[in-house]
């Protein structure tokens, strides 16, 4: 049997087929995990958030339009909401989180020191980004860090494409202003990733 398309998987998952949803998890867990880390600067928290995102995605699975072929933008939209409403999300899925397997990613990882260094760097970047409005941070994270198209980011955030364009433009302009701050040296990838 060939690999199922994202649209077929979503249709099956929305109909309650858990194995289809499991395949979606396999395909996108790493991306969601990295996205959650980039929004929090904490690998352990990103691990918990990844679990919450997929539980929440399952809860809202029937809200996805079946013609959407790619689940990832929608999953990242769910992740954005989960991170913004962290406490409510944790409360909603508390029982499931308590049943999570004990093994953590760190138990499998051999690069513990590098992960600690990641966290230090990401938190520094996030402190700088806190100077932007939340909505602009969301667009920047999706379009620049996750390299979504404007259309995909619009789908993820539930806003018009024009809004994504204007928010990204504003975010970049603001970050260029901050570049003049002698206390910071900016990595180009932080703000200037090309989008289609």
């Amino acid at each position, binding site marked *: 049997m060939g690999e199922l398309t994202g649209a077929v998987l979503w249709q099956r998952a929305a109909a*309650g087929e*858990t*194995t289809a*949803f*499991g395949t979606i*998890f*396999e395909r996108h*867990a*790493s991306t969601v*995990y*990295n996205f959650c*880390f*980039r929004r929090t600067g904490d690998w352990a928290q990103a691990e918990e958030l990844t*679990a919450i995102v*997929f*539980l929440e995605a*399952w809860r809202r699975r029937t809200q996805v339009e079946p013609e959407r072929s790619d689940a990832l933008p929608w999953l990242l939209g769910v992740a954005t909401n989960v991170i913004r409403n962290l406490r409510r999300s944790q409360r909603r899925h508390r029982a*499931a989180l308590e*049943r*999570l*397997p004990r*093994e953590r*990613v760190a138990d*499998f*990882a051999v*690069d513990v020191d590098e*992960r600690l*260094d*990641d966290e230090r*760097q*990401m938190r*520094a*970047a996030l402190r*700088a980004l806190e100077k932007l409005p939340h909505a602009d941070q969301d667009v920047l994270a999706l379009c620049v*860090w996750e390299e979504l198209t404007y259309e995909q980011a619009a789908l993820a955030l539930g806003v018009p494409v024009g809004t994504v364009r204007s928010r990204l433009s504003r975010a970049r302009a603001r970050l260029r202003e901050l570049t003049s701050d*002698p*206390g*910071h*040296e*900016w*990595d180009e*990838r*932080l703000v200037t990733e090309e989008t289609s």
Partner: protein
Amino acid sequence: MSERLRIPTRRELPAAWIERRRSHLLAELAGRLAASRRRRRIVIALVPAVLVLLAATAFTTYAVTREPTHLESIGCYDRASLGANTAIVSADGRDPVTICAAVWRQGALGTNVPKQLEACVLQTGAIGVFPRSDGGDTCGSLGLARLPASYAAHAKRSKASP
């Protein structure tokens, strides 16, 4: 000192971790589906029961509180039965029990004058006054609604209007 801000490179989740979490996720979702089906079964079982209860309540409310619609005349029955002999008299705004008690005193319904009478609303919407049975609630035992207390005001208004 200048601080270099950069986004750490992406890290792939270990395949073994993904597999374990996927298995756990599937077990979790299966439990949710089972719980959802249980809830749905309960709802499906409850809906007819609730509908029957609502219908029974509505019927009872209707039967117990029904308003009379024919206010011009009153039927005075000589027994607590819908098949009893009846004296039809004009309504004059007074309490129907008072009117039928007068009919009984006049001997129109026999000599065995009942101690108590009870006014009910017939299925036709007219008012019927029956001798009260021993157990009380004559209207209920005949499947009729009692004449509501609002009747008096209603009858006076009806009598006053041309």
